[in-house]
């Protein structure tokens, strides 16, 4: 009998190792569990992304440096009412501005009624502010002419 180490024999015996019968079930269960965890994480990530986008839309008009056209429009309106209507109150520029204001107010109302987002509302408030600025300039000029 040889006492030399016989690797062929040793390898044959070591090859006989059988994994436990339930190992595949464990692997399958772990795989399904991991897939569910990843799906939950992906859903949470998507929800976070959606919330970020919504928050961006909500907060963009109030961001530092951005003009709040709605507030500006309201301030101009108050300023306009404080100036008495002068001699030039019915010129073509004023008529055009008033007609534009009516159109924008209608568009704003419709936009609010259908729950429009700020990316649609902000341009309307901006146009309204610009028209109010025009009216204010005309009325200030008219008031000056009346004083003379």
């Amino acid at each position, binding site marked *: *009998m*040889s*006492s*030399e*180490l*016989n*690797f*062929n*024999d*040793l*390898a*044959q*015996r*070591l*090859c006989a*190792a*059988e*994994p*436990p019968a339930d*190992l*595949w079930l*464990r*692997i*399958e269960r*772990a*795989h399904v569990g*991991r897939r569910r965890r990843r799906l939950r994480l992906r859903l949470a990530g998507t929800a976070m992304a959606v919330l970020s986008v919504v928050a961006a839309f909500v907060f963009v008009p109030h961001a530092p440096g951005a003009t709040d056209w709605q507030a500006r429009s309201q301030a101009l309106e108050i300023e306009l009412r404080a100036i008495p209507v002068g001699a030039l109150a019915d010129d073509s520029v004023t008529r055009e501005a008033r007609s534009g204001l009516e159109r924008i107010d209608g568009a704003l109302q419709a936009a609010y009624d259908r729950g429009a987002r700020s990316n649609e509302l902000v341009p309307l408030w901006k146009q309204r502010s610009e028209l109010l600025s025009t009216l204010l300039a005309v009325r200030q000029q008219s008031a000056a002419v009346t004083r003379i």
Partner: protein
Amino acid sequence: MNAAQDPGSGFAQDVEAMTLARAQRGDMQAFATLYERFGRPCFSLALRMLGQRQHAEDLVQEVFLKMMDTIRSYRGDAPFGAWLKRLTVNACIDHLRRQRGGSEDNAEAQLAHMAGDSGEAAHMVDAWSLLERLPPRARAVLVLHEFEGYTHSELAALFGQSESYSKSILARALGRLNALVTARPLQQVL
């Protein structure tokens, strides 16, 4: 022994292209088929390298989960069995590194320490106990070189060491095993 001459390792099996394609689409039945074919060789290799059934079971689970995650990147450049074997060997080596912790590998020191206690061979009852008598890294080097056909250059790359390190560990491990079987004839040991 060379891996190419050893179909008994079980990794040298052909896999139908259809099974692979289904597995790449995440089909669980295809994964089950792959496990039926390769679960056993994967477990045997892990057990030879790690020496403990519980560790080998955990490692097979880790390897198959990784295979399921990464099979889409398998392009068929090498046979599937060779690819899975590489995943298994790499996972075993990572396991040994984790076991070792931050300390320097002490396989040589452990082998040197064991040199004098070959008299314990009388207690050896099977092939497993022979391999279990080796330090983890020495066992891994011996299994990969003698049973799986890895060269010293490949072992050096796997373990991040020099070829002379691999040669030295292997020579000491073989010496240790021979000392164990000399104390008792091989047929009685095995």
